[in-house]
Every structure is written in C-alpha cells, then in structure tokens.
C-alpha cells in the first residue's frame, strides 16, 4: 500500500480523498492555488504544497508544478478527483513518466472513452446499445441533412470533443438546421479547439441513468448498480439518487451487464461510470463513460456500503477486488442534493463569497461532504460547490423525509447565495415525490420567485423582530463579543448601515 498520496484537486472531493487516505493509514498531500491557501482541504491534509496562482490553468492544471510537488513531498501516487486532470490521458502519462502511480484507469482507457465519436464506435462494436446516430463525424450542413432525413427529426448535434452539457444543440426541423450547424462547429472550435461534430437521434423525455463499475488490474469487473441523475439544471446534475425509481429489476440487471461489458471492452480498471440515456419505454443507450470518481458517488456508497474511493486506492495499489458481483446488494434508498453557492432566481448563476455562519445538518441517515468551514470563502475561480448533502432511508419516502428535514437544518449565511430553498422546492414537488420526471423537469417546472406568501402572523412578527434586533446590533459599536462576531458581517452590514443612516 502507498505511504503517501497527493490529491491533484480541491474542495470537497479533495477532502473526501484525504479522509479515505487517513482511514487507510496513508499520508495525504494537498495542493493549493493562491486562492486556496486556507481552504479546508489544505487544513485537513498532512502535507500541503502551493502550485500557482488562482486561475486553474496556472495551478490545478499546472502539470509540472503538481509533479514537482509530489516529488518534493515524497508522494508515491496521485489521485485526480473529478474535473481538472481526472480525465486527461496526457496527465496520467506524465504521472507515470515521473515514476508515480495514477489513481485511475490506464491512459489508453481514458483516451478511448474521451472522444465521443471513437467511444460510440467502440461501444457499438462491443455490442453496447448506442443512440442511433452518425457512425462518424459529419462534414457540414448537407451531410447532416442527409443523415437527419434518414433517422428523422428531432436530432441532436454534438461536438466530438464536447461534454458536460457543452457543445450540443437540438434541431427540431429542417429549417433551423443550417444556422445551428454553423453555431455548433464554431462553438466547438473555440471551446474545445476541435470543430468536429456528429449527429444523434434526439430522445424525448430522456432520463439520465448511470451505472457505477469497479474493476481491478486483474480484470475482475463488477457493477455497483445504478444512479438516477435526471434532475438537472443547465444540463448539470443537482439531485441524484440510487436506486432509480424508474428502473425495474429486469432493466437493472440488463444495464449492469451492459456496463460491465462496456468497461471490459476498454480493459478498464479503477472506478468508472457508464452514463445511459433511457427513453419512456425503458430502452437505454450508451451516452459516455466517465473514467473517474463521480460527484454523486456517495449515494452508491450509502446503498451498497462500498467505499468507492478506498476501492480506487486499493485497486491502484494492485489489490484485487475484495468482493464478487453476488456480494453486492442495494439496501434502502439514498438521495444527494448538491448545495451550490448559486442563485436559482437568477438562472443559477454562481454567487460565491465569504461564509459567516454555518451549521450542517446531522443525525440519522444524513451524510454531508463539505469543502468549506465557517469563515471560509467560496472562491470565484472554481466550481461554487459548498457541500454534498446525502440522505439514506429504508425506502425512497423515508430518504426524502430525511432530506427535507436536513435541508431545514442546513444553516449558512454570509456574502453568498445558495440553492437551499431550490432543493426544498424539489423535495416537496409532487412529480419528484412520484418519481415522475426526466431531464427536462427543472426547465419545465421551476419558475423564479416560487416563494409562497405567508399569512402566519406569529412567523411574520418573529421575522420582523429578528430583523430589528440584527439591525440594532449592526449599528451598535459597544456590542458584546458575540455581536462583534456579526462583524464577519462587517461588510455584509455595510449596505445596511447606509440604508440605516437614511432612516435617521
């Protein structure tokens, strides 16, 4: 087993890996940009090394500095987390070239699954169902039109190098075709430096369901069941659960088998995820494979009891999987809400800032994976995630009950806005409770200002009283220490002070 591991990431996932290391008796090395010197992952690690300025390109994506940090601290392996370098074959090779172990799959597997077009070919060759689409990238408007007429509208145009919801466009009918083709290819060039694109049949009411796989270096490959990830805003997941309320036992068995097949086709080892698109008739199609740990891995851990990050490390160290497929079972239900510093009322734009007061939910069935602490800053340079709140219950209803309860307990205030009330809204929505949703759920159902008006006089009175008390506290210079703490508020109150002076 490794003596020391460097985590080439930040935020909650860096903390998650540090925890796994600590539990395994392995020392952890954090890296940090100049914006992250006091970030939680730096405080929690055994070693820490600065790797450059705030912009990711100069720090968390700075290969030489990261390799150098590993050498200087004597790390034997590097865990990439998710995002950043996690799916970068070049980085994986650089790590190996430096004589270190990359905690993830082989560079070949990363590469094979990294290209949308190549991976689709590979998968259909391996007998994995894929969405009907162009066998290869298409050259321009005419090729696209010809193919569209073959498979019929609506179609989806996707950048070959795209991903994460970026670089894809829907074409409803022939007349929008020309302009959209132009947009996609130019966007693809600018965003990914690769203008190639391909076409797929567009699936209506699609559900995003993915299957977790684990494989060791001896080729032992198992699936760890599915995750339902259809609750998305701007093509990005915000709520995930396992099992999926949509998947039947037969479908589950089939998806699992296909996922294992897909992983084996690229000689995959470590933890990975096969993403599927499922239509209303429960047909499912291969979307892509994520050759890394997923943000939403906790829901799988909660229902199966398997520690996926621990497994990644043990596999990288050459250990065989400690279990067979038959040993893996789902128990109960788990849901995860991604708590972001963002403003749902303003189209989910990031709204990072300093955190003053923070109290996390706790108690039965609750797991929280945070990347911040009271007094910390959610920096504007990176993904504005605050924490991943997960709830386990004996069944879906109990899991939702607990999540709703936990969201109420989640106290955070400061110079940032969060999506907590947005999650409260989801957890009470009839369609979510019924499990009746697809990837369009939020676009269809969520409208800004869903805040119900209250005629609860006691509550209104309490609200106003609290506001008055806080305001008096803010204008007050001789307050007791505790009130002084409101100073974190210092700046938060500044505007109020102004407002207040008007009043006088």
């Amino acid at each position, binding site marked *: 087993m490794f003596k020391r591991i460097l985590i080439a990431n930040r935020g909650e996932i860096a903390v998650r890996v540090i925890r796994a290391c600590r539990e395994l008796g392995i020392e952890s090395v954090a890296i940090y940009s100049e914006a992250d010197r006091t970030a939680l992952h730096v405080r929690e690690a055994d070693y820490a090394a600065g790797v450059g300025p705030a912009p990711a390109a100069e720090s968390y994506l700075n290969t030489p500095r990261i390799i150098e940090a590993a050498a200087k601290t004597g790390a034997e392996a590097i865990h990439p987390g998710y995002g950043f370098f996690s799916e970068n074959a070049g980085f994986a090779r650089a790590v190996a070239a430096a004589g270190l172990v990359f905690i993830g799959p082989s560079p070949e597997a990363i590469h094979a699954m990294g290209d949308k077009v190549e991976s689709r070919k590979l998968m259909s060759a391996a007998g994995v169902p894929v969405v009907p689409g162009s066998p290869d990238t298409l050259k321009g408007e005419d090729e696209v039109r010809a193919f569209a007429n073959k498979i019929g509208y609506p179609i989806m145009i996707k950048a070959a190098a795209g991903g994460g919801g970026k670089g894809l466009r829907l074409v409803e009918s022939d007349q929008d075709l020309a302009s959209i083709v132009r947009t996609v290819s130019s966007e693809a060039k600018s965003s990914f430096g690769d203008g190639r694109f391909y076409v797929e049949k567009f699936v209506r009411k699609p559900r995003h369901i993915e299957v977790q796989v684990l494989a060791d270096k001896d080729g032992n490959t198992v699936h760890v069941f599915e995750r339902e990830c259809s609750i998305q805003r701007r093509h990005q997941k915000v709520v995930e659960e396992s099992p999926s309320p949509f998947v039947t036992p037969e479908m589950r068995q089939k998806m699992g088998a296909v996922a294992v097949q897909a992983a084996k086709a690229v000689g995959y080892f470590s933890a990975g995820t096969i993403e599927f698109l499922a239509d209303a008739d429960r047909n499912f199609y291969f979307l892509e494979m994520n050759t890394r740990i997923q943000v939403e891995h906790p829901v799988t851990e909660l229902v199966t009891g398997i520690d996926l990050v621990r497994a990644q490390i043990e596999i990288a160290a050459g250990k065989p999987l400690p279990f067979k497929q038959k040993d893996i079972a789902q128990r109960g239900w788990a849901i995860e809400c991604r708590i972001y510093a963002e403003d749902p009322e303003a189209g989910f734009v990031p709204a990072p800032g300093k955190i003053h007061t923070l109290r996390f939910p706790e108690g039965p069935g609750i797991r929280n994976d945070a990347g911040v602490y009271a007094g910390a800053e959610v920096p504007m340079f990176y993904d504005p995630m605050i924490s991943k709140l997960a709830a386990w219950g004996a069944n879906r209803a109990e899991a939702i009950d607990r999540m709703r309860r936990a969201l109420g307990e989640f106290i955070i205030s400061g110079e940032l806005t969060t999506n907590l009330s947005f999650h409260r809204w989801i957890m009470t929505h009839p369609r979510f409770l019924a499990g009746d949703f697809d990837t369009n759920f939020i676009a269809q159902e969520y409208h800004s200002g869903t*805040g119900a008006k209250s005629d609860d006089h006691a509550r209104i009175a309490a609200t106003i009283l609290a506001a008055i*008390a806080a305001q008096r506290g803010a204008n007050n210079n001789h307050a*007791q220490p505790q009130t002084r703490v409101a100073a974190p508020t210092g700046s938060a109150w500044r505007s109020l002070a102004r407002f207040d002076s008007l009043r006088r």
Partner: protein
Amino acid sequence: MRYLATLADAEHEIELEEISAGSFAITFGGRRFDANLRAVGPASFSIIIDGRSFDLEVVSDGEELVVASRAGATRLTLVDPARRARHTAAEKREVSGRVEIKSGMPGRVVAVLVAPGDEVKSGQGVVTVEAMKLENELKSPKTGKVTEIRVVAGQTVEKGELLVVIE
C-alpha cells in the same frame, strides 16, 4: 417603537415594546404577541412567540434584509416611520421651544454625551440608552442648548422617562 416592514410586497406595521430584557409585546395585525428573543450567534436569534419557537438568521443584501429559517428565506425592508417623520420634520424646519428627550424603551443609560449648557445641533446624539443588550443613541431633534440632564450613565430608565431637556 413603531416599524414599517415590507415583505413579499406586503407592508406590515408593527408596534414593538420591550417589557424586560429580551421580552417584548408586539402589536401586529390587530393582535398582541408576547415574544422572547435571545441572540444565539452573530446574527442568529432564537425567538419564542406565543409558545412557538423560531430559529432565525439575518443577513443584509443591499437595502433588504434576508431572514432565513427552517422554512426558507424571507426578504424584507424595514422603516421606522416615527423616526423618518421626525427626521424629515427636523430637516424641514427647526423644532422650536422646549424639547424633552425621553427614553423610547426601558433600559440602562450607557453614556450622557452632552453637559448642561452645551450647544447641540439638530441630529446630534445626546444620550445612549441600552436595551435588548443593544445600544441606541438618542439624538436632538433641534439645534439649541442643553438646559437639563435628568440621568447619569449606568442608571436604568423606564419607558417614556425624561432624560434631557433642550431649549
């Protein structure tokens, strides 16, 4: 003291009277509420109103206040009509003649900021009174001379008790 609060586009008028430290009588929507307030953090308050418990976090956002609770967040703005009136009044014309400055709530005099005979400007602070563990500076509504000071620092005062006279 009276306040005007606007939440969810509805204006609410509320009359707040501190009975004793942390205990208030609130008149609101034609009803009277007994409230008990305790600070449990920088800007966190535990409030019990008619037996119901509210755990509230307050943060300001521009000219609005955001009060967060288990049930969600409420945005509101707060105005004190009495003061506003007095303010504008003071602006319009000098208040003339003898003015008595009284305590708006029961509390403790923290500091007397003027001495007999002092010349004071309109809006200048004259006495600081502490109530609800928080301090409030009482200001002179007119420019004039301090003729009487009825209190000393440290003394507790009743609601409406005369503090200072300005002529």
